[in-house]
């Protein structure tokens, strides 16, 4: 049915800085070539681009919005925007940072959309975001007790994250969860690096206050 995407896991794209831990890279296509192919309207190239970045976009959106389904919806919008605006991508930042920027803007718009409709307070926090069940489990969380503790910690951290102002939340998620450098965060948000650092400082301080109980245990241990 879909002429755009044919599933093909054989070839993927690498830039050297991509955090694509789980993806195997049998044949690596440079980012520039992928972008060039996408610009010519090659549906297979765009499919590859989507496959490459959908995980990070959905994860980022879910952390920022607190809902996985909402995040998937936003991710679709993000890739439609990417498709439309790819011709305007100048390559000054990496493709990943550029997509992050579109994703942040989309999340911000979505949040404002719900805020205008007074739904942001009524929305229940998504259990899948608060306490995700990881298929393989993490190192050190092999037994059920550890796993329960880990999920409870993640739930509290995510709940605290969702209480932050959007600009603090986005800077924290990009820096601490997605692991971007301050420079990349600045590029993704379109603000000066100094602003990123000051927001980061305030956001961390706010999280420290919100998670005081949890941190006490962490520091003691």
């Amino acid at each position, binding site marked *: 049915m879909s002429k755009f995407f044919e599933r093909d896991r054989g070839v993927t794209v690498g830039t050297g800085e991509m955090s694509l831990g789980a993806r195997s890279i049998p044949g690596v296509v440079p980012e520039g070539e992928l972008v060039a192919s996408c610009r010519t309207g090659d*549906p297979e190239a765009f499919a590859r681009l989507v496959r490459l970045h959908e*995980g990070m976009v959905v994860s980022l959106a*879910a952390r920022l919005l607190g809902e996985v389904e909402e995040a998937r919806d936003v991710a*679709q919008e993000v890739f439609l925007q990417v498709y439309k605006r790819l011709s305007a991508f100048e390559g000054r930042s990496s493709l990943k940072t550029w997509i992050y920027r579109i994703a942040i803007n989309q999340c911000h718009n979505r949040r404002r959309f719900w805020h205008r409709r007074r739904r942001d307070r009524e929305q229940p926090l998504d259990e899948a975001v608060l306490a995700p069940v990881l298929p393989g489990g993490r190192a050190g969380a092999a037994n059920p007790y550890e796993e329960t503790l880990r999920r409870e910690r993640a739930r509290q951290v995510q709940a605290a994250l969702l209480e932050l102002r959007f600009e603090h939340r986005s800077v924290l998620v990009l820096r601490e*969860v997605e692991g971007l450098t301050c420079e990349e965060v600045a590029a993704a948000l379109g603000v000066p690096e100094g602003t990123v650092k000051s927001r980061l400082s305030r956001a*961390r301080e706010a999280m420290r206050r919100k998670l005081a109980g949890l941190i006490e245990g*962490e*520091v003691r241990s």
Partner: protein
Amino acid sequence: MTCAGVRRRLSEWLDGDLEASRSRIVSAHLESCGACSRRADELRAVSGLLAELPRLEAEPVEAPVALRLELAAGSRRPALAFLFRGVAAARPFIFPSLVPAGCLLLLVFGALLAVDPGPLPEVRLAPGAWTSVPASGTEANPLFPSAEVLLPQQLASLSLSPELLAGHGEGSLFLETVVARDGSVAGVTLLEGDAGLEQPLIEALRQQRFEPVRFRGRRVAVSVYRLISRTEVRSPRT
């Protein structure tokens, strides 16, 4: 540096973004100040907790994105979009594609014009009685000359021979002639005058031919009234 100053810079210090000289001052302060050192540990714990958050797994969005792109591609070009493009941008094949459409339109309109629409539909009066009136514009229910229905033009002038007119006395004849749809005379009715005496004249009038009259694109039958006066003209007495 005061505790407040150190705490303001702790976030940057933890990221290693602080310039070397300041970084050393902060490090030295943390070694001597238990409260600030504890604050640094707490912030480190915050980072640790955030870093521990797992990457969320969700259904791939590849298929819905592909579907939406396909839908967008299908509806991207609105109909008649070429009207809003510059002449230079108009691709030449657009115009040939209009030719068959134009031919079809011509064919349809031509067929409509060629087919004689026939008489106007019959009008039924008094629904209970189902009395039907012959269709308007037919020989049985002709129209009368008006602004829209022109007076029929005679094709070949009928010469009413002097004998035809002279055989009878003076007086006027009032006649109704119904000009049929094909231009022939469908009937002549003598409304005033002696039918027996005027028979030859009536016969002569029946032979007349007219240009068919049209009303709203249809040929119609028209009723024409004529008054023929015969007055003996005498030369003035000398």
